[in-house]
C-alpha cells in the first residue's frame, strides 16, 4: 500500500518557510513603523520648537509694543512667503494680519500643538497644504495662530503609509514562492524515499533509497534507512531460512511417520484377521491424528509465511465477486445440510490485485466459521463491495456473535473462546484470515451484524484496486 504523496502545502519545508515568511513580514512591518514613528516625533519636535520660539518672540513684541506692535511685526514677517505661517484674528475670525487668508479649521482655544490644512496660492492656484502650530490668546479677544508648513513631511508620511502594505504583500508573495520552491525540491527527494519505502513494504526488499550525493541531512537519512534495510533484508532472509528448514526438518519425519502408519495398515489389511481389523482401526485413527497434526503445522507455516509478506510471486488480478461466488458455491451444500441460508449479495465487479488461493482460503475460513456457529434456520450473507472505507469482502451471520471484548483475542493463534472449546477446529482459522489480510495490506474487521450475529470483513485498501488497463497488461 502506498499512502498518498503529500501535496506541496503539506510539506514540512513549505510550512517552515511560510511561518518564517510571516514572522519576517511582521518584523519588517514593526521595524518600519518604529522608524516612522521615531522620525516623525523628531521632526514634530523640531517644528514645535520653532513654533514655540516664534510665539515667545511675538509675545515679547506684544508685551513691549502692545497690539499695534504685534500687528506690525506679524505683517512684516508675513511678507516672507516661507515655512512660517502667522495669523492674527479677532473674536469673529476676521483676519487682522498674517499670511493666511482665512482662519483655518482650528479651534481658537487650541493651546496645544495641532495640525491643520490650509490653502496657499502656488503659481496662481490654491493648493491644500498641511501645517502644524498653535494658538496664542491675546487679551482683547484676539487670537494669534503661529504655525509651520509641514507639507513635505506630510507627503512623505502618506507615501510611507500607502507603500507599507504593498511591501508586506511583496514580502509574502516572494517568500511564499521561495518556500514553494524549497518545498518542492524537498518534496521531490522525500517522494523518492517514500516511493522506495512503498516498494519495500510491498515486499521488494532489494530496493534501496537513492542518494542525491550532496551529503546533506536527507542523504544521511537515506543512508541510515538503507543501512536499516540491509539489516531487515538479512533478518528476513534468516527468518525465511529458518521457516524453510523448520518446514523441511519437521515435514520429513512427519512424512515418514505417516508412511509407516499407512504401511502397517496395508499389511494388517492384507492378513485380514478379526483382531487385526481392530488394530487397523487403531492405526487409521492414528493416521487421522497425524493428519490433524499436519494440518495444524501447515496452517502455522502458512500463517508465518503469509505474515512475513516477503513473497509476491503469486499475485494476480482477481475479481473478489468471483471468489465470493466460488466459495459460496463450494459451501452451499454444507450450509443446506445445516439448514443455514448461504447467499451472496449482488454487486458490481471488484477487481483487486491479490493471491487468489490465499483470499479464497481466508474467505472459506470465515464462511466455515459462520456456518459452524449459525444455528439451523439462520442466515449467512457474503458480499464483495467497494465502500467508503475500502474494498470489503464481508461475511455476515446470524449466529451468537463474538463479544466486543473478545474480538482482538480471537485472531491470535490457538485462541479459542470457551463457547467453541468443544467444536472441532485448530484455533488457527481466524489467525490465518488475519495473516492473509496483513499480506494484502488489508484489515480484518469484526463487528456486530444487525440485528444479530457477527460480521467479519476483509477490508482491502482502495489502492488494491486494479484499473482495467493494468488487468489487460496482466493478461498479456
Amino acid at each position, binding site marked *: 500500500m502506498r499512502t498518498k504523496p503529500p501535496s506541496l502545502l503539506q510539506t514540512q519545508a513549505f510550512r517552515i518557510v511560510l511561518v518564517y515568511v510571516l514572522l519576517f513580514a511582521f518584523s519588517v512591518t514593526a521595524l518600519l513603523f518604529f522608524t516612522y514613528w521615531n522620525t516623525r516625533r523628531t521632526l514634530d519636535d523640531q517644528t514645535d520648537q520653532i513654533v514655540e520660539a516664534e510665539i515667545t518672540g511675538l509675545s515679547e513684541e506684544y508685551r513691549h509694543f502692545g497690539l499695534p506692535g504685534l500687528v506690525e511685526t506679524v505683517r512684516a514677517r508675513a511678507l516672507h512667503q516661507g515655512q512660517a505661517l502667522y495669523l492674527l484674528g479677532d473674536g469673529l475670525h476676521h483676519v487682522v494680519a498674517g499670511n493666511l487668508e482665512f482662519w483655518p479649521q482650528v479651534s481658537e482655544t487650541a493651546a496645544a500643538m495641532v495640525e491643520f490644512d490650509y490653502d496657499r496660492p502656488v503659481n496662481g492656484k490654491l493648493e491644500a497644504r498641511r501645517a502644524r502650530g498653535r494658538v496664542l490668546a491675546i487679551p482683547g479677544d484676539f487670537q494669534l495662530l503661529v504655525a509651520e508648513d509641514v507639507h513635505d513631511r506630510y507627503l512623505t508620511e502618506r507615501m510611507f503609509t500607502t507603500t507599507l502594505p504593498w511591501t508586506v504583500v511583496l514580502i509574502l508573495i516572494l517568500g511564499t514562492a521561495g518556500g514553494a520552491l524549497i518545498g518542492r525540491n524537498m518534496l521531490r527527494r522525500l517522494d523518492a524515499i517514500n516511493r522506495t519505502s512503498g516498494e519495500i513494504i510491498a515486499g521488494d526488499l532489494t530496493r534501496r533509497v537513492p542518494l542525491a550525493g550532496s551529503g546533506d541531512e536527507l542523504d544521511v537519512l537515506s543512508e541510515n534507512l538503507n543501512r536499516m534495510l540491509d539489516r531487515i533484508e538479512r533478518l528476513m532472509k534468516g527468518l525465511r531460512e529458518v*521457516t*524453510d528448514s523448520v*518446514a*523441511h526438518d519437521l*515435514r*520429513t519425519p*512427519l*512424512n*515418514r*511417520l*505417516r*508412511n*509407516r502408519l*499407512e*504401511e502397517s495398515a496395508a499389511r494388517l489389511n492384507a492378513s485380514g484377521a478379526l483382531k487385526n481389523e481392530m488394530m487397523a482401526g487403531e492405526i*487409521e485413527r492414528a*493416521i487421522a491424528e*497425524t*493428519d490433524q497434526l*499436519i*494440518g495444524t503445522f*501447515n*496452517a502455522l*507455516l*502458512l500463517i*508465518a*509465511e*503469509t505474515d512475513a509478506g516477503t*513473497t509476491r*510471486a*503469486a499475485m494476480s488480478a482477481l475479481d473478489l465477486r468471483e471468489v465470493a461466488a*466460488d466459495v459460496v*458455491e*463450494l*459451501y452451499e*451444500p*454444507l450450509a443446506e*445440510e445445516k439448514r443455514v441460508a448461504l447467499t451472496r449479495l449482488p454487486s458490481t465487479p471488484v477487481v483487486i490485485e491479490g*493471491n*487468489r*488461493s*490465499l483470499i*479464497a*482460503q481466508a474467505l*472459506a*475460513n470465515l464462511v*466455515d466459521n459462520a*456456518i*459452524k456457529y449459525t444455528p439451523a434456520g439462520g442466515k449467512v450473507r457474503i458480499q464483495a463491495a467497494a465502500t467508503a472505507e475500502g474494498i470489503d469482502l464481508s461475511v455476515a451471520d446470524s449466529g451468537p456473535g463474538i463479544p466486543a471484548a473478545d474480538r482482538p483475542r480471537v485472531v491470535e493463534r490457538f485462541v479459542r473462546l470457551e463457547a467453541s472449546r468443544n467444536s472441532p*477446529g485448530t484455533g488457527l*482459522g481466524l489467525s490465518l484470515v488475519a495473516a492473509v489480510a496483513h499480506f494484502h495490506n488489508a484489515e480484518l474487521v469484526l463487528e456486530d451484524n444487525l440485528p444479530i450475529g457477527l460480521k467479519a470483513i476483509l477490508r482491502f485498501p482502495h489502492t488494491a484496486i486494479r484499473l482495467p488497463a493494468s488487468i489487460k497488461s496482466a493478461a498479456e
Partner: protein
Amino acid sequence: MRILVVEDDLEAQRYLVQGLKESGHVVDEAADGETGLNLALSRSYDVAVIDRMLPGLDGLRVVAEMREHGNSTPVLFLSALSEVDDRVKGLKAGGDDYLTKPYAFVELLARIDALMRRRMPAGIKTRLDVGDLELDLLTRAAKRSGTDIELQPREFRLLEYLMRHAGQVVTRTMLLESVWEYHFDPQTNVIDVHISRLRAKIDKGFEAPLLHTVRGAGYMIRAH
C-alpha cells in the same frame, strides 16, 4: 508404467519405491539431482517424481534442464518447503503437479495416475461412458439407463472429471484443484457434501452404485 523417483531422504525413497512397485509400476530411483537428471535424459519414463530440495542439483534445476533438453516427461514435485511461493515456482519451472510433504501415498498414486492418463493420446471425446451412465460433453446432458439426470454446471464438471478418471482414485484435493481451480484447505470436508449430492442424482434408485468412496483416499467412479 515406468516411473523415476528422485528423493534424497532414503527412508522416504524406500517407502515410495516399494509402494509404487506394489501398485504394479516399474521404478528407477536416484538420491541426488545429477543422477536423477542423467536417468531422466537417458531412459524413457511415463512420470518422474522429483523432490524439490536435492543435494547437488536442485529439483527445480533438474526439471528446467529436462525441459531444455526437450524432455517432456510429466513431473510431479514433492516438496517439504513452505507453500505459497514454492508451488508457483515449481509449476513455472516446468513441473506438472506439486505435492507438499507429508502426503498420503494414495494421494501421490492418484496424482501419478492422473498425470499418466493426461499423457495418453485420448483423442477428442464428445461423450464419456461409465456403465450405463453417459455424459454428452457437447449438449452437456447426463443420462443413466436412458433417464435424463439434471445437473448444475459445477456438478457436471465434477462428474466429467470423475468420468475422465474412471477406474482411478480421485482425491478431494485433486477435485478442489481441478473442478474448482482452487488450492487451499477447506476446513470442513465440503467436497464430501458435493459428492453425496452428486451421488444422490446418479446412483439413487439404481441397483449398482457407480460412485464409490475409497476409504482414506477419495472417490472413484467405475462400473462393476
